[in-house]
């Protein structure tokens, strides 16, 4: 029978099947971080059991770490306690930790791929919903809760019902100034914030195939923002080239042998999906969000729509009221106060090179606070070696050290109440970037343009 990419990986990882079809699913790689792991380790301790396969779990500190002065002790006591707890647990249970100060430290979904820990055909989980990022390599990768973190630590398996499958095709050539971030914001605006719930999504079509690995990661990263369990893209030569030579990638003959296995993974021609959508790249323009969930997005030249569903009227009005916006309004020319370039969605080299290219020789608007937070120590080092940090600083941007930062407002990097932040992150929920903060999600290019102009502009016309 013809199989999808998802079917092939899933079938290769089913250890056993239980009541009602629930699978005992084997997990190849498990990433952990300081925020969603301490209670899981406590669970192991209370049962007095070890980590079952220590070599398949990798830890880093990213969610609550400061993005300045990382060489100094963390000053915020609760953050310090949580990071110290991670160090203590990794030490006690024999788990590899790329913590603060380590040259491989960074956002968990940035370091996995750049170290070659993420490889095609794998099952990958992490106590973080943006684990879907790793699907860009042709993996089944999804976010889990802390009870499940404990289960994977204890057994290297999870109990899972097989989700339904959706394919989203994007065909054609993107316009100038339109990036992977605009593609995924466009898809979510069409399918809504819950349109993918219950599904695993395969992204396909010529537009997706033409994206770089970094662009594909941006696409898969935001699968969860339409409710999907995860998203994945068939591995191809671009994928193999990216993985080749990475620290933990197979080497030499083993690599060639593994590639021949990876080449068997793409979806068979006649395989069927529960649902399928096709979008045209030519319909996509630079995107902005106007509301308080990622489905509330529109092309930057469009106006905020009226609520489509009268039943949803109250939630829609509440959202626009929080944002200080109204239906029918355009965001073009909207003055903004903050720009955040970073997060597991858009903090990789390609993103930062694009930003540097745009801001080189320009100066940010005087009233804007603009922050660039690299995804990892390796990205930070590369930025410095290419001299991009000087371009950022000269243009008035604050170039910081790696972490999740203002994406979720767990550390000091928060946006003040009622102020607008153009952000390359993934969520515009109420209070996400700080209590009362108003987030407008865009691509790194649109964010860079907003910082320079002090207001939202259409970068495709710039």
């Amino acid at each position, binding site marked *: 029978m013809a199989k999808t990419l998802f079917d092939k990986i899933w079938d290769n990882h089913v*250890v056993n099947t239980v009541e009602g079809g629930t699978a005992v699913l084997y997990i190849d790689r498990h990433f952990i971080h300081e925020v969603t792991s301490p209670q899981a380790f406590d669970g192991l301790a209370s049962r007095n059991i070890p980590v079952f396969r220590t070599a398949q779990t990798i830890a880093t500190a990213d969610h609550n770490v400061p993005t300045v002065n990382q060489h100094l002790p963390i000053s915020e006591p609760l953050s310090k306690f949580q990071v110290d707890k991670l160090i203590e647990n990794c030490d006690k249970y024999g788990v590899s930790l790329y913590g603060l100060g380590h040259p491989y430290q960074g956002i968990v979904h940035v370091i996995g791929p750049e170290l070659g820990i993420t490889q095609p055909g794998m099952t990958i989980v992490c106590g973080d919903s943006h684990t879907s990022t790793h699907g860009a390599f042709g993996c089944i990768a999804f976010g889990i809760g802390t009870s499940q973190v404990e289960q994977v630590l204890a057994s290297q398996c999870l109990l899972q019902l097989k989700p339904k499958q959706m394919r989203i095709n994007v065909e054609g050539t993107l316009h100038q100034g339109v990036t992977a971030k605009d593609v995924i914001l466009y898809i979510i605006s069409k399918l809504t914030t*819950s349109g993918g719930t219950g599904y695993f999504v395969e992204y396909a079509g010529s537009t997706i195939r033409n994206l770089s690995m970094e662009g594909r990661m941006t696409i898969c990263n935001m699968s969860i923002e339409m*409710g999907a369990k995860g998203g994945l893209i068939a591995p191809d030569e671009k994928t193999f080239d990216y993985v080749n030579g990475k620290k933990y990638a197979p080497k030499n003959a083993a690599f060639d042998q593994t590639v021949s296995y990876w080449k068997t993974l793409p979806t068979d021609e006649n395989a069927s999906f529960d649902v399928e959508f096709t979008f045209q790249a030519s319909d996509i323009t630079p995107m902005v969000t106007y509301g308080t969930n990622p489905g509330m997005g529109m092309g930057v030249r469009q106006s905020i729509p009226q609520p489509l569903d009268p039943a949803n009227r109250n939630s829609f009005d509440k959202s626009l009221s929080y944002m200080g916006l109204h239906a029918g309004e355009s965001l073009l020319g909207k003055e903004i106060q903050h720009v955040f370039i970073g997060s597991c969605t858009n903090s990789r080299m390609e993103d930062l090179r694009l930003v540097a290219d745009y801001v080189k020789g320009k100066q940010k608007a005087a009233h804007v606070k603009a922050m660039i937070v690299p995804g990892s120590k390796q990205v930070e080092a590369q930025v410095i070696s290419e001299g991009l940090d000087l371009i950022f600083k000269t243009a008035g941007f604050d170039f910081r050290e790696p972490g999740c930062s203002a994406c979720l407002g767990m550390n000091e990097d928060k946006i003040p109440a009622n102020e607008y932040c153009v952000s390359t992150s993934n969520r515009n929920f109420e*209070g996400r970037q700080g*209590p009362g903060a108003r987030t407008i999600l865009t691509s790194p290019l649109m964010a860079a343009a907003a910082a320079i102009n002090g207001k939202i502009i259409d970068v495709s016309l710039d």
Partner: protein
Amino acid sequence: MEKFTLLQSTAVPLPNEDIDTDQIIPARFLKATTREGFGDNLFRDWRYHPDGSQKSDFILNNPIYKGAILVAGRNFGCGSSREHAAWAIADYGFKAVVSSFFADIFKGNALNNGLLPVTVSDSFLNKIFEAIENDPNAGLEINLENQSISISNSSEVEYFEMDPYKKICLLNGYDDIDFLLSQKTIISTFEKNNRYPFNPIN
């Protein structure tokens, strides 16, 4: 985990749609390293002003509405995977959440903590909201064995879907981890026979 069989209670209505886990428990309260105490900050920014005083228009601050069941608009629990959201709801005292649609990760987290997510039709959800609006003391009965939810003092009843494995877990108070630990021999055999190259990290 506590067993879940039958729950009879009044309910707290929260008809907003797309309630994400950042609203249920904002990230700045995720710095604890234990599972307890998150109920104090449940819906923190909807419940309290920045100075810590209560917002009188939020439903949890209205003494008329109480009970062990939270009834919420569709797509409840979307966004972050933080299990702290399920811990906060349970720690506050809720035993079940009723909605017409749940986000996947939240649903799984709730089930792993004995907090029952009950998915009903949009029309039944509206009937519940109407019943509570007419009488804040209107009770709901959730019967897990029969997979039914009914509105007390009325003939309104609906049957809900439930993963058969998770149903057994909840009825008996079993954790997934107990089951997975019982599978270790099978898991080790799978590892030996698995044709996928592992190349462990260290």
